[in-house]
């Protein structure tokens, strides 16, 4: 089963671009098992983007009051994301949490939806990530690779068992 890795954000809002930067510099030797995409649009279009994918990993910035650079891993496959991390619908746009819940309601959510949230420090206008955020990207790269390796190993085991 291939994983779709999606980096979200806005590169002109400093740390909001953490997910994009992560995917841009993501390095893997498991290219058979993972596709990656950059996503800067309205989160509602995620529903279209992940059509056909069984497993999605979303990498996004968070603003929860935690230490900048803190990575939180959340599993939205079965239950909704906490609102304080990824927000609710606004007058103008859908949030990521909304897109996930709408997809769940319409049975358009991939089987597995994992979100890695990177706590940002600076969301003002401008380019470039804060030091703490940039520093954590390499560590997160390893964490994502470990998770992919684990998932791939257990998928192999399952297919052997069923053979």
């Amino acid at each position, binding site marked *: 089963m291939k994983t779709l890795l999606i980096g979200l954000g806005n590169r002109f809002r400093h740390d909001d671009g953490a997910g994009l930067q992560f995917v841009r510099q993501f390095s893997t030797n498991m290219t058979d098992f993972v596709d990656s995409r950059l996503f*800067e*649009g309205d989160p509602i279009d995620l529903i279209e983007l992940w059509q056909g994918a069984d497993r999605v990993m979303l990498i996004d910035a968070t603003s929860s009051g935690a230490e900048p650079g803190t990575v939180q891993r959340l599993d939205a496959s079965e239950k909704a994301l906490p609102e304080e991390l990824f927000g609710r619908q*606004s007058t103008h*746009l859908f*949030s990521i949490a909304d897109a996930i*819940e709408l997809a769940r309601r319409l049975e358009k959510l991939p089987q597995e939806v994992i979100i890695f949230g990177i706590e940002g420090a600076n969301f003002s206008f401008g380019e470039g990530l804060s030091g703490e955020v940039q520093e954590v990207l390499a560590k997160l790269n390893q964490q994502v690779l470990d998770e992919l390796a684990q998932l791939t190993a257990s998928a192999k085991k399952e297919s052997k068992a069923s053979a």
Partner: protein
Amino acid sequence: MSSPKKSKTRTIKVDYLARVEGEGAMFIKLAGGEVKEVRLEIFEPPRFFEAFLRGRNFTEAPDITARICGICPIAYQMSSINAMEDLCGVSIGGQLRELRRLIYCGEWIQSHVLHAFMLHLPDFLGYQDAIQMAGDHPDLVKKALRMKKLGNEIMNIVGGRAVHPINMRVGGFYRVPTRDELLTLNDELSWAIGVAEELVHFTGELKFLDFEQDYEFVAMRHPDEYAIIDGRLISNRGLDISVREFDEHIQEEHVRHSTALHARIKARGNYFVGPLARFNLNFEQLSPRAQAAAKRSGLGKRCNNPFKSIIVRSVEILYALELAQEIIGKYKMPERPYVEVKPKAGTGYGCSEAPRGICHHRYTIDEEGTIMDARIAPPTSQNQKTIESDLANFVRARIELPHDELQWQCEQAIRNYDPCISCSTHFLRLHIEQE
């Protein structure tokens, strides 16, 4: 979320999204049965981009301004391209111009569908949001998503991608699509035109709050088309100016409570841009089918109730779908994707009809093509004073309503404008204070 009624000061506050604090908020203060203050506070991205543009080459403006908004990148690209071509004395016609109209149709379709059916419609059907609405009306939401996808597809094929398209440039396109590529959209367009017609009828049946105001509407006017990508600027109170004369007639001013500039017509005051303005000023230029659908929905030729903008957006969706199909039907791939444009020192002006209304750009470049100055007037900041004045009038007539009900109706009144509060932070807080 309201505090107990017996306290002297009552406050209702809604945090739509606590992602980045303090960027967009509506503040209403009531005292002694009077509306004392209404403030729309917005932080506006174009201010940052204006600074970012200075020192860049004039050919970079479309790519940079496309980043201002993930929903309406074409509007920013088109207005900046118009300004640069105006400045350099170039006029683009024929199929290249038609492709520009086509990609703009894609933007109108996806933006209007998102607003009308995912964000605005839940208000009228009594749902908190589209997620709740999808539980009872899954087919309606699926149709809306499919139609939005079609708008995105048009932008993909013509623009290279739907979000922040990369294919538009000063002088034309980096690459033009083949006729076969465009024809892949045809069946889906036929489906969508039928559905859009149904949706105009459906929105016409909704129940609307009674709120008619005497607005000065401003929109672009083209002699032969329902203006989208170019034209003059006109109003129902006699404004009739070229895009170049914008600064002479329209004043943008700083107000203390917002980083966005407030716009007003110097001679008269606030004005209203967007679908309602276009519809009221250019109704006769809509397609016969869109005109007929509007009439059947009960709209008539004029509409002064912003709550009914959901019907007008549906009419414009229908129109944009028809226009897209017409352009594709007549399309002949141009021999050259663009016309070479040489920089010329001076100031250029460009405007186009973004989904939310006119988006006006002004640039000054030197003889090398370096941008010396940039000024962007997006539609929401032009509507800002009108939104505030609407809110004051709206609340004045409903001051006796319980707070929760008043708050809910105010949110709806704000949503009528499809406001681009801040193009990328998804942020609006509503705050009603009663002394």
